[in-house]
């Protein structure tokens, strides 16, 4: 760097550090506030008491009994994992098909898929509600998971990555008599692990945090995911803010852990779209 003006503690440099520190502090503070909130009684949560309290066990008990936290957590986990496992599989296969077996017809189909990228979700959920209702599938975990298994964005992202895989290697395998499926499974897929990880993380988080469709498809507590549970707690006649903070913390934790342990793939998944 040649930015000599910024080397000394000039007013500009101090201002810059101030901006960064304030922004960083404001970004992190709510996380502390959530964690601290899990130890407070409801009134202190709202007042914004910043010192730890003693109500953690009480809040935890309320969260797991009055708020069914284990059930919601299980629902969220099962739905997100199910989406990821099936989703990465079929999306990867599709991306592979679109990229490595190009034909005019398939290119057109891909174009059609891309067109729906800008489609707001609110436009789809109404007919989807009627459709699931017709098949008597509403209020099941399957109904919540199914619509996000296929993701145009993920197909697009993985296709970009398949582009980087040299077609010559596939040709060589063909000469050796490998079937197309085994080329995909044994040669291409293993070298794409990082991309699959990014796609998996992205899909997991999208499903874990998903709101509108689960809100509509979950008609009672049995299938509610964490965001839907939190939303209904906010609509309750009495909100136990301390216990709510426990639910908030638990619902944030998995994504936080994913981010902190797999930062590289996490960010790669985000960036897939601007390449």
């Amino acid at each position, binding site marked *: 760097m040649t930015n000599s003006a910024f080397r000394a503690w000039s007013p500009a440099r101090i201002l810059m550090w101030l901006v960064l520190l304030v922004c960083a502090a404001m970004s992190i503070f709510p996380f502390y506030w959530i964690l601290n909130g899990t130890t407070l009684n409801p009134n202190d949560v709202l007042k914004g008491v910043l010192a730890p309290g003693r109500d953690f066990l009480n809040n935890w008990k309320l969260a797991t009994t009055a708020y069914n936290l284990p059930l919601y957590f299980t629902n969220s986990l099962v739905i997100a994992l199910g989406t990821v496992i099936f989703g990465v599989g079929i999306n990867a296969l599709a991306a592979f098909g679109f990229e490595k077996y190009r034909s005019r017809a398939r290119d057109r189909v891909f174009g059609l898929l891309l067109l729906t990228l800008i489609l707001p979700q*609110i436009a789809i959920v109404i*007919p989807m509600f009627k459709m699931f209702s017709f098949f008597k599938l509403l209020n099941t975990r399957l109904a919540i998971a199914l619509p996000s298994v296929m993701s145009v964005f993920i197909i697009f992202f993985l296709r970009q990555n398949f582009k980087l895989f040299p077609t010559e290697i596939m040709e060589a395998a063909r000469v050796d008599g490998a079937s197309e499926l085994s080329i995909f499974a044994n040669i291409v897929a293993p070298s794409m692990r990082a991309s699959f990880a990014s796609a998996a993380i992205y899909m997991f988080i999208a499903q874990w945090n998903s709101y509108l469709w689960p809100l509509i498809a979950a008609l009672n507590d049995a299938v509610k995911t964490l965001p839907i549970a939190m939303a209904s707690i*906010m609509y309750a006649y009495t909100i136990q803010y301390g216990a709510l903070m426990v639910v908030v913390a638990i619902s944030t934790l998995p994504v936080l852990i994913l*981010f902190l342990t797999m930062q590289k793939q996490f960010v790669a998944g985000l960036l897939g779209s601007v390449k």
Partner: protein
Amino acid sequence: MALRGTYERYLNRFGWFCVAPSVLFFGVFLAYPILSSLYYVTRRWKGATNTFIGLGNFVRMAHDSIFLQALGHNFIFMAIQVPIMIFLALLLAVLLNQGIRSFRGAMRLAIFLPSVTSLVVVSVLFRALLQENGLFNNLMIGSHLISAPIGWLNNSFWAKVTIMLAITWRWTGYNMVFFLVGLQSLDSQIFEAAEVDGASRARQFFSITVPLLVPIILFSAVTSTSGTMQLIEEPNILTFQGGPANGTMTAALYIYRQAFFVNFDFGYSTAMSYVVVLIAGILAFIQIRLLGGERATR
């Protein structure tokens, strides 16, 4: 020759085999809903029954000032929040990239952290922090910035500010990461040359950094505006059902409420969602044209 044809057919068939599951899902969960909405949009629901009313839903919409007001709110959020957030994200990215050398990773991590939270969590957080007697007001009164508590959730002006604060908190770090990657791909020699020519920092920022990052700014603008067009968690939970008095009602929330909360009129809601789709499409088109032209589309 014949053999080659067979082999190509085989490859072609395999290609279809690969894309088939996804295309099937696409058909069932995207194409079919879109097509079937053409049926719903012509009907009016009342409880368990519905009747054909042709374009009646669109006529009704033209006179529905709550819907128009809700669209207006979407545009307000878009016009005010998106530019502020993009500028802030860009500024932070430049500061992190060129300004400091130590703690860069830690700072980036910290500022990105809000992006891991769900929008529901963001809404819960800000709803609690912005209570009349909540932490935010208490801190501001304590530091003599204001003398009386602000009704963040009670007053329709402040409620809009509240929503924008929440979105900015959640998304600034997210956008910053894109800009950081963009900045790292820029050639540092350009800046060195500018330095030699005596260009000020601000000048460098506006004359070099911003123009070079146009494709990424465009991308951020498109995703952010389309996100703003779909705002629903925040007005539904943070400012409670688009309150106060519809003061933060958004198009998506009003559609959701008409379809799944108040009247269960799927026809009217579908008609309104068509308008939202149309606007989202137009906005994406304009932005791509205005900001980037051909170059920005890759």
